[in-house]
């Protein structure tokens, strides 16, 4: 009786008793989804972010070219993020800016600003699989992670650079994705991705992305300073380095519209 005088405690006990059975009944698909949900939840609340992105593109011969981009993003509750990116290099596209309202399901809204013509163009967002700025990163590799974009399957636990990792397969829902699946290594402590193996539309190994030099911001938001993408089919690679991360700078909806796109620079 003493136990039941507090309904909360009673609930807890029922939970403790039934929880193991739930875990036992969990299929690999359910576990994969649960890990994705926990990973997403662990990073919620970042509100807004600003960072500088630097890409070094290398071809098979080792020739390099550089891309410099500054970006701002806004966390949007119950929808995808908003982001605004400005290109600094190469110099012929300096001032070109890109505004994106992403959605977990369906097409993203995207606009491009061309400074030479002072023209804002709404562009089709169907091109998820296309290369971003000639790099080995596709647009879909750089868009925000949303639960609804994939179905999941837990594969195994495995040691990784981040300690002990969950290995989960993710199957893109969007038929326009360039991948049949991605295999993702997430550490069990903080749900940080350490490696992603991409398989092309024919299910052949295409690219491998590795994450390096994580830092923690605002007590819970882990961000890598370096992401290395290697294309196994072409021998090309792209290093993406991030710098000057800033969180909770007070950005709002007002910072993401066609007027801010035109003067993004």
């Amino acid at each position: 009786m003493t136990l039941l005088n507090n309904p909360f405690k009673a609930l807890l006990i029922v939970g403790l008793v039934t929880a193991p059975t739930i875990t036992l009944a969990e299929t690999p698909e359910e576990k994969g989804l649960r890990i994705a949900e926990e990973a997403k939840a662990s990073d919620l609340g970042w509100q807004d972010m600003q960072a500088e992105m630097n890409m070094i593109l290398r071809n098979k011969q080792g020739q390099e070219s550089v891309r410099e981009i500054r970006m701002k993003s806004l966390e949007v509750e119950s929808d995808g993020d908003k982001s605004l990116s400005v290109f600094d290099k190469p110099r012929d596209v300096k001032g070109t800016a890109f505004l994106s309202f992403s959605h977990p399901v369906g097409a993203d809204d995207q606009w491009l600003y061309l400074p030479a013509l002072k023209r804002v163009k709404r562009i089709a967002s169907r091109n998820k699989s296309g290369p971003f700025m000639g790099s080995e990163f596709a647009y879909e590799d750089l868009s925000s992670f949303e639960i609804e974009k994939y179905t999941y399957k837990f594969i195994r636990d495995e040691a990784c650079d981040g300690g002990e990792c969950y290995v989960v397969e993710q199957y893109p829902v969007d038929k326009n994705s360039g991948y049949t699946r991605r295999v993702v290594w997430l550490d069990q402590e903080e749900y940080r991705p350490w490696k992603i193996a991409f398989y092309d539309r024919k299910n052949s190994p295409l690219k491998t992305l590795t994450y390096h030099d994580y830092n923690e911001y605002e007590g819970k938001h882990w961000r890598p300073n370096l992401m290395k993408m290697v294309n196994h089919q072409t021998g090309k690679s792209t290093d993406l380095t991030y710098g000057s991360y800033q969180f909770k700078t007070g950005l709002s909806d007002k910072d993401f519209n066609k007027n801010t796109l035109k003067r993004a620079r």
Partner: protein
Amino acid sequence: MSTLTLKPWVFLAGLFTALPAQADTYYEMSGKVTADLRYFTQDAQFEGQDYDTNLSFTVEPEFFWEWNDGTDSLTFTPFLRVDERDSERTHADIRELSWVHIGDDWELRTGLRKVFWGVTEFQHLVDVINQTDAVEDFDGEDKLGQQMINLSLVRDWGIIDLFLLPGFRERTFPGEEGRLRAGVVVDTNRAEFESGAGENHIDTAVRWSHTLGDFDLGAYWFHGTNRDPKLLARDINGQTVLVPFYEQMDQLGFDLQATIDSWLWKFETIHRDTRSENFWAAQAGLEYTFYGIRDSAADMGVLFEYGWDQRGQEADAAIQNDIFLGTRVTLNDAESTELLAGISHDLDYDSQSVIIEASRRFGDNFKLSIDGRFFSTDNPADLSYSIRKDDHLQLTLERYF
């Protein structure tokens, strides 16, 4: 050299009150220099045009200052072209000299600026604020800086832009030594105006633009000097010249783009009311893109547009009943290799023109382009008849800094 009537009071008054304490100012300079060589494949039609090649250079630096945490900025973009043959094409302009102040949900933009409106590719019908710098190219895409005070308001129901345009820029025209011109040279020193205020008439415009789901739309009203002059034949010292005559106009414009999957549906229309005419015109079309052709990174877009003008063959516009077909290939490689090819067909005059534009980046700071333009008409009533011998290839090298 074109004359530039900058009205310093337009923005200096406000600027000086907002001027920065030096330490907080961010300054940046960038820009480009270009060299282009045109090769004309046919002998010229008119006197003064007796050459096959033409070399030309441009320089366009951009100076930028920002202060007050980015809420105030100043941009200065002078432009200079030096042309081997055409003294009218050798010209300078201030493309931009403007101060922008950013408020919470508004922006005030003051000075010489460029504004683009519209969605279609082969004609920019609704684009009305800036005068065309017609000596640059005959496609009408190069514009002169326009003096303006532009208040832009961001609301939940769209963006409202209010324009006060103090003063008018006259269109540039090729001189006697220029190709890609009419048989009679336009004497820009003798421009005439309907308004007694001449080039000092203060024009006004208001535009609303908004995004509703897959649709981006805009509508405006413009009241002021028509950017498109009537060309009147005048006898000056026994010689016939064309003189630009600028009427007053009221113009309503509307533009719409629907972005659905791989399709872009585009529509622009205007209604123009001047002393001499009153008409509708429209440009409409679609663009479909094939992504990742043959499992490569390359995309290919296919464009189709139709241009119509209510005045029909009476129109002094080149596009009155014309269809356009084009393709855009982007390799999405590290060098940003691109190709655009298009053909237009005039259904009234049965004439064609072909454009090809290809470009590629070299190294970090160079870009090389090859453009080709070819014209075919045998009807003297067609406006393109006077440039039918001006088929050319152009090689352009751009150096960015």
